[in-house]
């Protein structure tokens, strides 16, 4: 269960500075919610940790190992033992549910793969959808497939980029509960990006509130409720 | 991977290699219509076993392809023999230093008048300029008898001449400039234009328009007229300026040149000799009514003989030079 540390990160997209002197760490084995308004740099933080972006300056370490530093990737994304759930879920439209999950298990034997995939689908309650394509699934089922696809590789860190943005409240609660139980079972560190403070309050062990490329405040849910920070107040106590 | 290598890569490499290897072949560029030139070249191939690789082009579309190629390839010629429908283009190549003189027993059979003085080009089988007309639109007895009748108001807007910038028409006009002198020739051209002469895209276009009945008559070459007669019963042709005192009609021989520094010069020479033979002239007489230049070559009945036509007397080389000189003026004339 690794701890993730970002130190003095600077990052920009073409001309727009996104992060500047960003320092933060996310506790091992915990669920941290990264909460903030759109465009504040939350997604960028996730992508930096996953290794999909390279920080211009500063260093990122996972479990005391430096993975990126000053414009260089030291550990490529697939060796970081991270899972990433994209905002659009990134389900490959031409793969069946089975193939979505089996695709990452490339070093396994065929029979093992099949067992593993069916097992995880069973766990997620979507075993009967195994032959369907993404466009034949409901919104909730797609979420499940996307999460299962990451979990099956047993990541140590699970990065989630607002994956539940377009889901109704009941379903959202179900999936969140499911995630919690998965976390207890698989014991991974989870970093959950959202702009919805209620979702954050429900999900996180702790919450980091981001604004304009900086962490405003970090703390437990309770601490957030009591925070005197102006931005946090305006953002949470609407 | 190995199969890929064997099936795809190797044949490609071998194919490329075999193309660049020297072989028994001759490369000919021709602006003579493919329908007529191809059979002759095929016969040569059959008789000599030398493979003919040809690039065809058409006079109608200004021979742009082969001429521009020959000029651009000057420093590394691909072509051995250039066979043109008229001597003008050979003249241009000569002035650019692309041709080489060639003389053989065979070339001597051609009358001197139809050869360049150093044999940079040698003529054979000739065509003549004719008037083609549509029988439904004009009676034979009311046709103009001379090219100078084209300015007659009676014919206003009824006839066509191909764009004088291209093809044999250029040559015809240049010959008239030689014959009449610049002043008079320009006057005649302007009068013709004032008489609403239609400027067609090419000789073939003139033929088509007369055949379709779009226009009563027009100037074209014997081979076009010959084809038109085969295709339609409504058309016929006559030679202009055949009276005793008149200037005669223009005769245009095919012209063949050897290209300087060519790769297969020996094969090229053989092909030239073949083209200059009586047999070829007979073939061209049969296929497209071209008139043989070698004395005593038999011709089919419907093909005119040079002996029976009054020919315009001109110096082909000087006419070629004249052509280059008047081209800017012709361009203006055509575009006005």
């Amino acid at each position, binding site marked *: 269960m690794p701890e993730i540390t970002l130190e003095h990160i600077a990052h920009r997209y073409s001309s727009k500075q996104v992060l500047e002197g960003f320092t933060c760490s996310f506790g091992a084995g915990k669920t941290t919610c990264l909460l903030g308004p759109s465009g504040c740099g939350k997604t960028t933080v996730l992508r930096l940790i996953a290794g999909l972006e390279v920080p211009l300056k500063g260093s990122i370490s996972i479990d005391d190992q430096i993975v990126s530093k000053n414009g260089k990737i030291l550990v490529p994304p*697939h060796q970081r033992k991270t899972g990433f759930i994209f905002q659009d879920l990134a389900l490959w*439209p031409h793969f069946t549910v089975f193939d979505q999950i089996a695709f990452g298990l490339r070093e396994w034997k065929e029979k093992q793969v099949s067992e593993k995939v069916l097992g995880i689908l069973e766990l997620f309650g979507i075993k009967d959808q195994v032959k369907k394509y993404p466009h034949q699934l409901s919104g909730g089922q797609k979420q499940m497939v996307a999460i299962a696809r990451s979990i099956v590789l047993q990541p140590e860190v699970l990065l989630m980029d607002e994956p539940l943005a377009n889901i109704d409240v009941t379903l959202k609660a179900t999936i969140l509960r499911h995630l919690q139980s998965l976390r207890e079972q698989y014991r991974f560190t989870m970093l959950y990006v959202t702009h919805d403070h209620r979702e954050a309050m429900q999900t996180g062990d702790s919450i980091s509130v981001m604004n304009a490329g900086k962490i405003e405040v970090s703390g437990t849910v309770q601490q957030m409720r009591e925070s005197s920070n102006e931005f946090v107040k305006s953002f949470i106590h609407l | 991977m190995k199969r890929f290598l064997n099936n795809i890569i190797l044949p490609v490499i071998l*194919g490329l290699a075999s193309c660049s290897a020297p072989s028994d072949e001759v490369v000919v560029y021709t602006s003579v219509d493919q329908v007529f030139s191809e059979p002759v070249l095929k016969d040569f191939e059959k008789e000599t076993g030398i493979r003919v690789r040809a690039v065809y082009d*058409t006079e109608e579309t*200004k*021979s742009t392809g082969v001429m521009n190629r020959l000029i651009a390839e000057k420093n*590394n010629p691909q072509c051995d023999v250039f066979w043109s429908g008229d001597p003008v283009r050979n003249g241009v190549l000569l002035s650019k230093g692309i041709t080489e003189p060639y003389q053989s027993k065979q070339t001597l059979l051609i009358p001197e008048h139809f050869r360049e003085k150093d044999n940079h080009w040698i003529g054979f089988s000739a065509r003549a300029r004719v008037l083609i007309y549509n029988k439904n639109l004009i009676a034979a007895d009311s046709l103009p008898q001379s090219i100078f009748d084209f300015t007659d108001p009676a014919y206003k807007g009824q006839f066509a001449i191909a764009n004088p910038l291209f093809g044999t028409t250029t040559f015809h006009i240049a010959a008239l400039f030689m014959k009449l002198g610049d002043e008079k020739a320009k006057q005649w051209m302007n009068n013709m234009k004032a008489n609403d002469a239609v400027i067609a895209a090419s000789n*073939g276009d003139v033929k088509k328009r007369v055949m379709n009945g779009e226009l009563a008559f027009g100037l074209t070459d014997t081979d076009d007229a010959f084809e038109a007669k085969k*295709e339609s019963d409504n058309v016929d042709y006559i030679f202009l300026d055949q009276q005793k005192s008149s200037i005669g009609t223009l005769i245009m021989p095919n012209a063949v040149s050897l290209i300087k520094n060519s790769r297969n010069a020996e094969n090229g020479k053989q092909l030239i000799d073949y083209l200059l033979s009586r047999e070829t002239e007979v073939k061209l007489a049969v296929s497209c009514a071209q008139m043989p230049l070698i004395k005593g070559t038999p011709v089919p009945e419907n093909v005119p003989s040079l002996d029976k036509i009054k020919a315009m007397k001109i110096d082909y080389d000087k006419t070629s030079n004249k052509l280059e000189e008047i081209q800017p003026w012709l*361009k203006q004339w055509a575009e006005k």
Partner: protein
Amino acid sequence: MGRKIVRHIIRVVPSLLLFLLLGLPLIVLLLQWLGGAERSVLLSFMNRETLLLVGKSLLMACSAALLATFTGTVCAFILYKLRFAFTGIYKLALLLPLLISPYIFAVAWKDGFFWLFGNNAAIYSEVGVILIHTLVFFPLAMLIMGSALSRIDASYEEAGLMVIPFGKMLVKIVLPLIRPALTISFLLILIFSLSDFSVPAFFGERTFTTEIFTQFSALYNFPLAIGQSVLLLFVCLLLMLAETRYLSDAPFFSVSVKGSGSKKYKMRNWQVFLHGLLWLLLILVLLMPVLMLVIQSLSGKALFFSEAWMLMRSAALQSVKLALWSTLLLTSVGLWMAYIKERLGNRLPNLLLLLTFIVPSTVLGIALIKYYNLPVVNFVYGTTAILLLAYLGKFGFIASRIIGNGIRQIPVSLEEAALVMGIPSWKIFVKINLPLLFPSLFAAFVLSFILSLGELGVTMLVYPPGTEQMPMKIFTISANAPQALTSSMTLISLAVTVFFIGVFFLCGKILFKKFRYA
């Protein structure tokens, strides 16, 4: 680290190769022109008369581009936005004119005019050229606009319809959304029309392109001709730069992967009118030229079909073979160039392809001859390899754009999701990108085939001695053959093209089934 090197190679090598193979010939030609001619000749093309001619040509091309874009947009709207019977058949039929060369159109229309009215003087004019260009090029506009219209999300229109009436919504919402496509359609047709030689030459209209051709072919004045080409190129480039952000990102011919989420309207009262309109267009652009060809084929003194087939057989075979190779090359290079532009951010190769795309054919041909006609590279110049290069120069841009738009429609996250899982790059490309790109690759394949099969301008200048190409053969045979024979040959070549496209579509249908998703 290895990944980085591979990326670098993928990025740099094709740019370099493309530059060496196609860019350098043009530069060498330009340098020879600058270095070879005297200064007075260099500037002689810059005079009032030439500039007036450029103006006139531009005006004509603009008119044709405007008309074609307008017609194409109307058709696209009818066929893509209205609920309507037989739209599929109309779409296909209206695209067929793309297979007929402008020259054949011109001939058919001229004869058609004469046949109908007994007089065709009217068509030998600027109006005639504009008319033919409009008819020939509007299917292109239809294709571009159709794809743009069907990609508008229904909700935009519906949101608009809540507050303003239908007509106003079209103007205020749909029109701005399709503006980039309109611009591209206009520019592409403008360039096609500006660089077409055959139609104005046939109608005896003097344009800038015929002028260049005259300099090349009647006066053999290379320096002047090249100078004028440079001017034409300059004009084209200026137009391009004005709208470069649209064109380099041109969404034209993008194949919509997702099922159409666009709104379709019912037009019950207008059905008859709309069918009438489409039939009128069909008659104008397809039935009339084909009918003329058939009439001419049958009205000869004899039937020429067997003779025509004898003449065409070997040329057709060679042409199809070459076109298939060229199509493979175009599609794979197009894919490569599109990938490095869209995913690796290297725009240079695409710009180069854009340049060779707008260079007049004659200039490209001459540049290729001058560059490749060396004993050392005779294995290129003396073989059909030179034709493949020429086609790459002529049509690489279009192939690359079609595929580029396909790539752009694939969310990057699909690749990243696999990357995080540790799937190797080549496998991501093969298993994820390629299948998703299939519709675009297929479109690029078919279009490249059509274009390669019909190319004449450069082919005429560089085809190796002793080989035969279909359009070239028709072109040279038509010079003095009976009209019926020429028309028969044209019909045969049309049939061959249509046959292969039919085959492709059948294959496509089967393959699409395999890749059906969305």
